[in-house]
């Protein structure tokens, strides 16, 4: 199939071969004619079981969020659940429920800073850590360590380090005349939380970039060396474009992760001092202190899902488009 297609595809104006444009697996159905009946049953059984898990624990809860967001559900079995219409949504947008505006800003800052920071750091690290050799291997273990250690260990480690009273950071920074309550300060808490999130997750991004770097044909670099291409130019013109698939994946992981997870924020500050992102807000409204507003929390979750889609889908489309352009 491929050869004939390639022959039939007209080449580009500059003579470089163009990839045949097939619809790949998205093409028309071929049908499982070759599978025996028993195997077909197995296939359907497997597919349906897996789908059941996905629907029951992925889609149904999101639908549940929507339903609960229209009620004043408190999870108490003996209490009545009333339909409150759109009041949970309107109270999000009026100043009556403070924290929501701040949560949007916090989420925006968090997502952008973590995505850019994590990818930048990972790229920098991957560059050196993809080499063979003992030093690079140790480096890879160290860099991957934070995510392997777990969110509580990471959170508590940094709380220890940034303890305003007895911590090393406080001592070090006071030598420069900087004093702060760190995680208790409205101006330091968010940057610190962003830093720890990046610190924890950079390992996984580095891994992805290393995979991407290793898949680049070394002959490309040799050709560049022969042509005397400098380091910076090599990075910009050769490495970075060739890393497009890895960059797409990493950006997606980082954006979706920053939007939807708040485990680290919970451990570090529980959303106080300006670090309350939308996810943290939904959790605190539902399960945090003296609240039990599960309806409102569900409304915030629905909003969060919509926001994630609104940001991530176009971003992903953009990155895929770039990939296709670079690789065609």
């Amino acid at each position, binding site marked *: 199939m491929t050869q004939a297609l390639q022959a039939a595809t007209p080449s580009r104006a500059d003579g470089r071969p163009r990839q045949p444009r097939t619809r790949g697996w998205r093409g028309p159905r071929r049908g499982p004619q070759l599978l025996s009946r028993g195997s077909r049953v197995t296939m359907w059984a497997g597919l349906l079981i897996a789908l059941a898990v996905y629907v029951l624990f992925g889609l149904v809860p999101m639908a549940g969020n929507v339903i609960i967001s229209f009620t004043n559900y408190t999870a108490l079995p003996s209490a009545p659940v009333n339909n409150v219409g759109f009041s949970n949504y309107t109270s999000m947008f009026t100043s009556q429920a403070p924290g929501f505006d701040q949560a949007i800003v916090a989420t925006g800052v968090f997502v952008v800073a973590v995505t850019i920071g994590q990818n930048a750091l990972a790229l920098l690290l991957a560059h050196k850590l993809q080499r063979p050799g003992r030093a690079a291997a140790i480096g890879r273990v160290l860099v991957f360590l934070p995510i*392997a250690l*777990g969110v509580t260990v990471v959170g508590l480690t940094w709380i220890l380090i940034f303890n305003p009273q007895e911590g090393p950071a406080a001592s070090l920074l006071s030598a420069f005349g900087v004093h702060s309550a760190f995680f208790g300060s409205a101006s330091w808490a968010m940057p610190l939380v962003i830093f720890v999130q990046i610190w924890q997750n950079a390992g996984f991004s580095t891994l992805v970039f290393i*995979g991407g770097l290793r898949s680049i044909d070394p002959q490309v670099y040799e050709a560049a060396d022969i042509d005397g291409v400098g380091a910076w130019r090599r990075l910009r013109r050769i490495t970075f474009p060739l890393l497009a698939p890895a960059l797409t994946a990493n950006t997606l992981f980082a954006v979706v992760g920053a939007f*939807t997870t708040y485990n680290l924020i919970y451990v570090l500050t529980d959303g106080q001092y300006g670090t309350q992102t939308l996810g943290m807000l*939904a959790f605190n409204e539902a399960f945090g202190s003296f609240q039990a507003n599960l309806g409102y929390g569900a409304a915030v979750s629905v909003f969060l899902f919509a926001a*994630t889609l609104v940001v991530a889908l176009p971003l992903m489309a953009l990155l895929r488009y770039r990939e296709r352009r670079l690789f065609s």
Partner: protein
Amino acid sequence: MRRPRLVSGVAMGVLVAILFLLPVLYVVMLAFETPAHFLNSPLTPGTPAVSNFSGAWNGADLGVELLNTVLYSVVASAASTLLGLLIAFPIARRLIRGHSALYTTLFIGLFLPFSVIPLFAEARMLHLYNNRPGYILLHVEPGLPLAVMLLVALISSIPAELDEAAWMEGAGYLSYLVRVVVPLTRPALIIAFLYGLLGVWNDIIGPVVLLSDPSLFPVTRGIYNFFGSNESEWTLLAAGIVIASLPVVALFAASQRQIIRASLAGALKG
């Protein structure tokens, strides 16, 4: 000929050491300090003591918690990877009607948050609240969409002739998957497994909402409780952190080559 470099290897080494090694060393140092020494001079190591470790081990019941963590993470992510394969194969081979729509449905799953509010209600309704099988089952779905995405991409690159040849000879569906597809899609399987594993491993919101019996807690939850109850006994806490981290470090150091090699094959080009 010397290849031009942007950042020197030494500079990188220093960066990695300061950023990633120092915090770890600080915690390890704390774990070996006596509480009295820490109160007086928190930044310098004193004569090493190991009393903190027994205190931490007993105080936080770390043994059971470590076992729980491993159980939950490994089983849930193995399940999501395998279930992902069972969805991905029919989609990639176009064996069912509406495979494209199905793919899109799974794609949306990449953006779903872990909806604890309805899951709390659902868990109680389905008797999945506060027990091990329930907790594991509730954590299978988050890794599923990525597994499907990666596997569809990789399976597409396996020639269809392979299936046809095997099936014409009467090979069963599952045995074909296990014997042929799994080895060939190993990179995607490993990345999906790892991603799922790390998700469950790093979950503290899940244990807080979905578990109430302390003997079921994973380490993330156990250590968190331990923190509040020990006030300013930071040395004990540091020892707890070290204990909780050791198995993971050992395991990762042993397996990192496999993982790196897995990401080699550009499993993400899809």
